[in-house]
């Protein structure tokens, strides 16, 4: 069938190629949206120096297409621009992105390890109180705005649980070089055990809040696809073979329901990335979420247009890649899909 490894290469390749026009569209769109209104330099930078204001005014009074062209040309040359105060965008993103990725992966891990079994349990107890409990649980997470959850966790839960609520490490900078800018990974690579534990402790609360809020989708999707799969004959066959119920569910049934659950990965990625903006700000996590928060003018900061565009574009690319991975996973998991 069309499922050899070389076919997989073609499968992935085709989708990567489709990525490019979407990428360009993203950059164009972000640019348009952030430059939609008339320049309001005085309002944006109330404390800036005269030269900065003049600079801003000159930049924004050009026609939109010129502005975009300048930006795009710069981008292609590797210059991601700078904030009005002059700090370049690229290094900030280069150091911040891995930290955010660490947070996102930790949340994903929690979502899978907790959310999917919850979905299975809800499907097994369909219509009964176990199902209702799970539903209340994930809807509670869903209904909590990120900032509310983050603030409550940081201010109330952290002291109660004895977990830190700020930053990646207890004291910065850490005594080892940060190659990857992922706190736990760096500490592990440096072989520094107490700092690794410290890094993990700092990761727990923000990752848990992020996971709790976004878990709903994974649980819901698992539950409904399990409900579809459980009455099918092959599940009964598996039971009749003499397998204990646990293996019937987690080996036979779940394997098939995961096929549809992976499609949800793309949507989840969007939610996770969006959530990092607030979570990183509240928990002081040095990722691009926090960078986005200030670039966009959160908390009264001066807007950093170049930074905003870059961050938004990076997020969008992240979502697109997550969708791509979900697509590929689907193709791998479902043996009926032909890769050619």
């Amino acid at each position, binding site marked *: 069938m069309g499922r050899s490894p070389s076919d997989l290469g073609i499968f992935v390749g085709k989708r990567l190629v489709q990525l490019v026009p979407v990428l360009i569209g993203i950059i164009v769109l972000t640019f348009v949206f952030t430059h939609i209104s008339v320049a309001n330099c005085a309002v944006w930078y109330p404390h800036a120096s005269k030269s900065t204001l003049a600079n801003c005014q000159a930049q924004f009074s050009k026609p939109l297409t010129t502005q975009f062209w300048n930006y795009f040309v710069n981008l292609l040359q590797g210059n991601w621009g700078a904030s009005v105060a002059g700090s370049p965008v690229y290094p900030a993103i280069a150091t911040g992105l891995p930290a955010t990725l660490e947070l996102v992966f930790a949340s994903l891990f929690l979502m899978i390890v907790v959310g999917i079994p919850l979905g299975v349990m809800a499907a097994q107890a369909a219509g009964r109180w176990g199902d209702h409990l799970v539903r209340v649980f994930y809807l509670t997470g869903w209904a909590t705005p990120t900032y509310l959850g983050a603030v409550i966790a940081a201010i109330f839960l952290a002291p109660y649980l004895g977990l830190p609520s700020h930053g990646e490490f207890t004291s910065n900078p850490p005594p080892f070089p940060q190659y990857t800018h992922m706190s736990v990974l760096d500490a592990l690579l440096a072989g520094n055990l107490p700092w690794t534990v410290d890094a993990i402790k700092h990761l727990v609360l923000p990752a848990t809040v992020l996971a709790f809020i976004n878990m709903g989708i994974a649980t819901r999707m698992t539950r409904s696809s399990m409900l579809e799969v459980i009455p099918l004959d*092959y599940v009964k066959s598996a039971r*009749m073979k*003499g*397998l*204990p*119920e646990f293996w019937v569910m987690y080996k036979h049934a779940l394997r098939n329901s995961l096929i549809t659950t992976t499609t949800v990965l793309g949507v989840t990625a969007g939610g996770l990335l969006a959530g990092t903006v607030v979570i990183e700000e509240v928990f002081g996590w040095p990722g691009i979420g926090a960078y986005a928060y200030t670039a966009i003018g959160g908390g009264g900061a001066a807007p950093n247009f170049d930074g905003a565009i870059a961050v938004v574009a990076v997020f969008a690319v992240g979502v697109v890649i997550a969708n791509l991975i979900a697509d590929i996973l689907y193709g791998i998991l479902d043996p009926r899909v032909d890769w050619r």
Partner: protein
Amino acid sequence: MTDAVVSIEGLSIDYVVGAGRFRAVSDVSLEVERGHVVGIVGETGCGKSTLAQAIPRLLPEPPATIGGGKIFFEGRDLVQVPLWKMPAIRGTGINMIFQEPLNSLNPAFRIYDQVAEAVRIRRVRETNGGSVVRAAGSGPFDYSRRPDPSAGDAWSGKVVPGGAVQEVVHRKQVDRETGGTHGEIAEEVLSYLRLVRINDPETILNLYPHELSGGMRQRIMIAMALSEKPSLLIADEPTSALDVTIQAQVLTLMKELITEVNTSILFISHDLGVIAETADELGVMYAGKLVEFGPVAEVFASPRHPYTKLLLRAAPTRYKTDGPLLSIAGNVPNLSRPPSGCRFHPRCPIARPQCKGDPGPPLAPVEGASANHRSACFFASEVAQMA
């Protein structure tokens, strides 16, 4: 009674749905003797599938509950066994094949993996090794009384040298649980696939179910079920979803297997012809009750229950030139409000006032017939004279 593999006494199964509670199976008693094939026949909705799935406790217990009765299997009452212990009895004790070949095999796994899983489960239980599958306290199954399935020397010879088998299957070498090398297990898988008359089974080992035909899938299902060497095999309408030619092939196969494998079979069907071909004894179900039970030839030749007689008469023969097709007047009763007394009395041509009275007629032996021919009719002896 002679040595019965499974003996059901007065089994009743209720469904608790929001609207109320209704009894899908009422007070059914039957036995399957060792080495026999017992067929259960009935219209859609008469409770035969429910009965079949209830024996290995496959029904989801919250909506379905066992409302009474006993199921004796290998000296144990399965009704009393807690659900978590049932996996130990399923598979090697009782196994089941289902109706839709499309859905019976897991679409995500290869054929080899699925059949090998069954083989491994059996080997674990035989060798008393592994821990996952065996419930605490249950003894090993005694296979000494049953000969190995001998599929005839023509089939079981080492047709393919071991090397080719290794090539096809990519797995780790030694199976830690059962001690069998994957070569051994692969050999066994292949032998069971040959048992169900699949030629060149090596070619299908790496395929997925959706790449095979319905008839092939059904054979694989049978192979998978038999590879665990169950004492009782329940076949829930195994040929109903197949077209007629494949149906004939699978039935021929099953008949041959019955002699070769010495597993007892409980065969559920709505097709009288299929049952006539394969079964030794026949049970007829109507509205959740077993209305007649007896040796197949005798029941067909001289039915002792009005429903059976009308059913046999309604089955169309090759052609009919003298008038419309015969049917049974009326409709199957709603099981949440069944008729009083004998459930068939509203539609029965020989009904009398006493048929309406509760309790209805018991399944009692009929005079002038074999010892185990029973009918649930007060006037069983008059059925022969029914027009």
